[in-house]
């Protein structure tokens, strides 16, 4: 196991390097650069001379060869310097330092929420296949699977405003927005966060529960389940010990994708909910071709993906001994 972990870590370094190249290149792909989009945002009255444009380009280092640009970015990255956001005129590290902790504070509980809710529901649905409860859960699940999370967010905001008179979205309710930190403010933040977790998690719950149900249905009719039953084990105990253990493998293998999906797949929802996570930041950075910021966020997300995959691989090895290390 330890050997495997070390070997995998080595592979992860290579993967991360390749990702850094791809991230940088992808950001460069759209025509034009930050200076173009910056000029486009300037009001029409300003006349910008060609000299000024060249000066801007060289100021940002955009006039150099892409390889040189990449190498400078990457070597800086290794020293913990992610460059400067053109748009915000602040270091990327600073910006991420503001957003990443909050992103993780929402993402990780969301992931836990998804698995804690979806796996038991999936198990129940499979064991009681075609029961009214199964139909109800599947029906609700499909609805939440079909509705995009941001729409749920909008509906939640509407309901919250219309019927409860409160504001939904943001990290704090208006009365705490500018207030100094207090117990009330922390509770308020947790309350708002739990709503965000609920909204962001619904799609994941619906999808994971379908996967769990389907996988378990396959396993429930396997011969080894009958063997366990013939042994005299009680029904729930044998289901939890045998088929669930096998069926949970594919669910575990999705953890690697869930982490980045929750972080980057929720830009729109986070934008709607006005939650300052990295999602809206990335969306904005890509739109304005703020390349160091965008590349750095993509790079960080990729590292999280790689770590997530690593965790899910370790869990898989634990769950299914047939998987060779």
């Amino acid at each position: 196991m330890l050997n495997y972990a070390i070997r995998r870590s080595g592979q992860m370094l290579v993967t991360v390097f390749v990702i850094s190249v791809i991230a940088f290149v992808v950001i460069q792909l759209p025509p034009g650069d930050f200076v173009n989009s910056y000029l486009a945002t300037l009001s029409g009255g300003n006349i910008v001379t060609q000299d000024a444009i060249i000066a801007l380009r060289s100021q940002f280092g955009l006039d150099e060869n892409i390889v040189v640009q990449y190498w400078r970015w990457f070597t800086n990255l290794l020293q913990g310097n992610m460059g400067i956001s053109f748009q915000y005129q602040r270091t990327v590290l600073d910006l991420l330092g503001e957003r990443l902790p909050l992103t993780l504070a929402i993402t990780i509980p969301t992931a836990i929420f998804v698995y804690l809710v979806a796996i038991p529901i999936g198990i129940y649905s499979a064991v009681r296949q075609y029961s009214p409860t199964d139909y109800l859960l599947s029906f609700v699940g499909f609805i939440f699977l079909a509705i995009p999370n941001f729409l749920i967010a909008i509906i939640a905001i509407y309901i919250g405003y219309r019927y409860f008179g409160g504001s939904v979205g943001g990290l704090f309710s208006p009365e705490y927005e500018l207030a100094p930190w207090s117990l009330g403010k922390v509770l308020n933040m947790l309350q708002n966060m739990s709503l965000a977790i609920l909204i962001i998690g619904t799609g994941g719950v619906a999808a994971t529960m379908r996967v769990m149900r389907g996988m378990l249905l396959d396993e429930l009719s396997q011969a080894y389940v009958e063997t366990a039953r013939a042994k005299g084990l009680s029904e729930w105990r044998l289901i939890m010990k045998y088929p669930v253990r096998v069926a949970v493998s594919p669910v575990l293998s999705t953890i690697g994708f869930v982490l980045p999906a929750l972080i980057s797949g929720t830009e729109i929802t986070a934008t709607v909910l006005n939650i300052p996570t990295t999602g809206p930041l990335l969306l904005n950075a890509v739109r304005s071709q703020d390349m160091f910021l965008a590349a750095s966020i993509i790079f960080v997300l990729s590292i999280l993906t790689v770590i997530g995959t690593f965790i899910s691989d370790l869990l898989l090895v634990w769950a299914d001994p047939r998987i060779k290390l």
Partner: protein
Amino acid sequence: MTDDRHLLLEIDELKTHYHTPQGIVKAVEGASLTVREGQAVGIVGESGCGKSVMLRSILRIVPKPGQIASGKIRFRRKTGEMVDLTGMDANGRPIRDIRGGEIAMIFQEPMSSLSPVHTIGDQIMEAIQLHKKVPAAQARKMAIDILAKVAMPRPEQIIDQYPYEISGGMRQRAMIAMALSCEPRLLIADEPTTALDVTTQAQILALMRKLQAEFGMAILFVTHDLGVVAQMTEYVVVMYMGQVVEAASVDDIFFAPKHPYTHALLHSIPRLGQRTTGQRLEPIRGTVPDPFARPSGCPFHTRCNFNDGRRCISEVPVLREVGPNHQARCHYAETLALAGVGAPTEQVPA
């Protein structure tokens, strides 16, 4: 010929039906049989004749949507008390104590009948600890002992291995070890050697005979291999479409069958020397009828060579005594004078 051994299991007019959207499948339709303590009884029949469903009815593990519709399954418990298994809650305490503890089952597929993600030892120890209140260390010791009893090589190592790491024959040995770990009084074997190659099959059969003698348990041995029946059992029950059509000692079944279906089964298997004497293989004509549309009268009349066209089509025959300790479900059992086959002389040394 009377048997003075205690009655261990008595299935009486058991009906197990499957309620499907297309209609009711009468998988077992009035089957009766008895097993005495220490007796080896074989159940023979084609695929889909209700053998497996009947066995699962005994343990009350009939898969959904199957249900026991009527009938009784009486079983003598360790205490000597006679209980009706059909009256028990399928997930209740009493039946779970009997499952694995007093009636154990071995399944057909050693590949898929063991959990792929648990060690052999884990699965055997679980059975032991479920029925005997012993600490884990002792359960482990007992598991190694029972693995040694089923002639498993290197039991101390095998116990910590996963099923995918050992061969099919060894898996079936592990399966048998698991079934025997709680010293059941009845072992139900559902085609335990069908999935194994011939040499492994012979080893497993020999092992089961030896263990049966050693443990003094009764075996209900299901197979569609008549050769295996001849080797393994003393009494044979032949099933067709969910009913027992003939039941007799193994000699009577082979030498003096009374039911046309048994006769047809015996003559449809190849025997050595058959070609030199000019005999041909006679397959049973037709196929097993659609379970949704059971034939009227005798269910076998659609394929029977002795169908009289009247009584066989209209009147359902009953299972009746046609000789000493010999029952058959045919209107003409006594008058057909069916020919038996040569003695299945080959015996597996115990």
